[in-house]
């Protein structure tokens, strides 16, 4: 993550992405607040993987095609991206909103995907119609969202008073694009639950024990829907395991990758 971002135009999207390390390729799909804050866990992977971390269309420095309006658009886009980069046997890692995109991709086509890591995923609906099981991250001022994402107190409050306007605009645009894809139904696609069975690759479902956006039980339901899934709870971590405990998150990915090796 030390190098600056690269730009590539694929399927009408001018994409900003980082590409670092060598080895088994990992595509990391970020949460609804943007790519910021993933460096730590990527650094913990220690350059032993080729890690590709894009800003989703509509986020960061990536453009947003006019016709994009749901997570399925992003799922198709990332399948185009891995085709374009000619990646094979990749591990797709998604956190929160990014895990929803990763799951959507894998329900469509896993021919280039060797394994899937879904951390604190949103995107499925299991509860009845009067019960909201995913915290509504839009019914609060944007600056209040941070405290729900992580459990570590010093990461919950972000002081933006000294931020440059460009950085603030980027954060505001991220939140707007997040809402474009996830405002209603609030952070889920009613179809995803019924399509999880199509995910036919080994999957590690990782959940923060202290997740206050989607409870651990919800994570268990996701794992139950995927035939080759294992469920793992990270003690002490909140919704963003990669941010609360980047070292352990990297270790989990490492262990998962090791488990996949015999199938190569």
């Amino acid at each position, binding site marked *: 993550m030390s190098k600056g971002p690269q730009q590539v135009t694929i399927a009408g999207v001018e994409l900003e992405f980082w590409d670092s390390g060598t080895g088994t390729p990992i595509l990391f799909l970020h949460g609804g607040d943007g790519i910021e804050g993933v460096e730590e866990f990527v650094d913990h992977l220690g350059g032993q993987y080729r890690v590709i971390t894009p800003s989703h269309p509509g986020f960061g420095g990536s453009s947003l095609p006019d016709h994009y309006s749901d997570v399925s658009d992003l799922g198709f886009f990332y399948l185009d991206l891995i085709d374009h980069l000619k990646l094979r046997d990749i591990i797709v890692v998604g956190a929160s909103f990014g895990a929803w995109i990763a799951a959507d991709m894998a329900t469509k086509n896993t021919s280039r995907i060797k394994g899937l890591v879904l951390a604190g995923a949103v995107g499925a609906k299991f509860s009845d119609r009067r019960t909201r099981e995913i915290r509504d991250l839009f019914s609060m001022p944007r600056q209040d969202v941070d405290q729900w994402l992580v459990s570590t107190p010093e990461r919950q409050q972000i002081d933006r008073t000294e931020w440059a306007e460009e950085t603030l605009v980027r954060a*505001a645009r991220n939140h707007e694009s997040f809402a474009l894809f996830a405002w209603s139904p609030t952070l889920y696609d009613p179809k995803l639950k019924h399509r999880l069975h199509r995910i036919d690759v080994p999957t590690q479902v990782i959940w923060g024990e202290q997740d206050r956006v989607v409870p651990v039980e919800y994570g268990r339901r996701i794992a139950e829907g995927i035939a080759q899934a294992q469920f793992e709870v990270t003690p002490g971590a909140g919704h963003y395991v990669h941010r609360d405990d980047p070292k352990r998150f990297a270790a989990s990915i490492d262990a998962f990758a090791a488990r996949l090796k015999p199938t190569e």
Partner: protein
Amino acid sequence: MQTWYFSEQSYPDAWDAPETPKITSPSRLVDPKRAHQHLQNFIEECELADQLGLNIMVNEHHAAYTCMSVSCMTTLALLAGRTKNARLLALGIPILNRLDPMRIAEEIAYVDVLSGGRLEVGLVKGSPFEPYVSNTNTARGMERYWEAHDLIVAALTTQDGSFSWEGKYFNYRNVNVIPRCYQEPTPQIWVTTLGSTGTALEAARLDYVLGITANAQGARSAYPKYREEYRRVHKREADLDRFAFLGYCGIARDEATAWDRAERVLKFVEVSERVSPNFLHPPGYFTPVDAGRMLRGGKAGTHRLKVLPDGTPMSPKPVAREYMLNGVMFAGTPDQVYDQLETIFHSVGGFGHFLFQPAGTLTTDEVRDSIELFAKEVQPRLDRLTAQHRAKMTEPA
């Protein structure tokens, strides 16, 4: 000058409750019998306004103690039968939030016919907290707004049978509005803005009335842009009737009573601004630049200017006199109210509509007295003011 009596049809009895007054407020705090009486009073106030030569404006909000009207057109359909001469303005129908533009077009045409062509309609964006009830997505909201607008106008102006609409946000097999509008081609359309250039320019191009609500600074920024664009597109000066200004009003025969009324009218503003910050920033409602600034400030804001003309901040709980200095409140005896209106009129280059809001926690007798005083003692002078202004506009340079 056209003056429009306006009340939000509030339920003030619940204003002192600790709950947020909007969105998640429990309806059990509303006594239906009290609500019935408030609404009856409002209808009778409208009848009085009509008899005294004023027009009537209504609005709508959802899940709010501050506004029980949930549909402009429901109220106006009733008023069409209870008034004779008043023009009836919906300001407005929040088309960013409403789910079915075809239904909006149908209701507009119906009320226009019912009222014999007395309807005017604002097609507005709506307040930021509204999408938390309607659930409409505010990301790309303005694109959806303009598609709804285009569809409504097409529905109201097409007279040769149905047409299909296969848009980005709306799909209809057959758009067809029967009866068609009484007024040709449509009732006058209004839009509102807090001062945005984009809205002012678009309104000028479309020859719509531009409404500014309780925000003199917004008028000073938007009206000149409208005037310039209007001149460029239509090759003539925009008449005063293209500009509307809304103000709160505390009026009485003596100053002490007037200022007491002004404070109670402002209670509405105070309660309105108590809406939970959770519902003030729907993503995409503000531009990324504005939303970014709010993110830095860490606080949800209000559109009402909180700084006095000399640069000093208003008090945490502003009083009527402060809002008066900012051109939001017009308060005092009829002479004083007129003088304040004349000052604002000149400072923004003139306007032809005054949206007159005297309600708050006033009793219906006090509201009726305010309507009467305004109609009899302020209105004739406003008419002279606009006549003089128009005469000046037509003088050779």
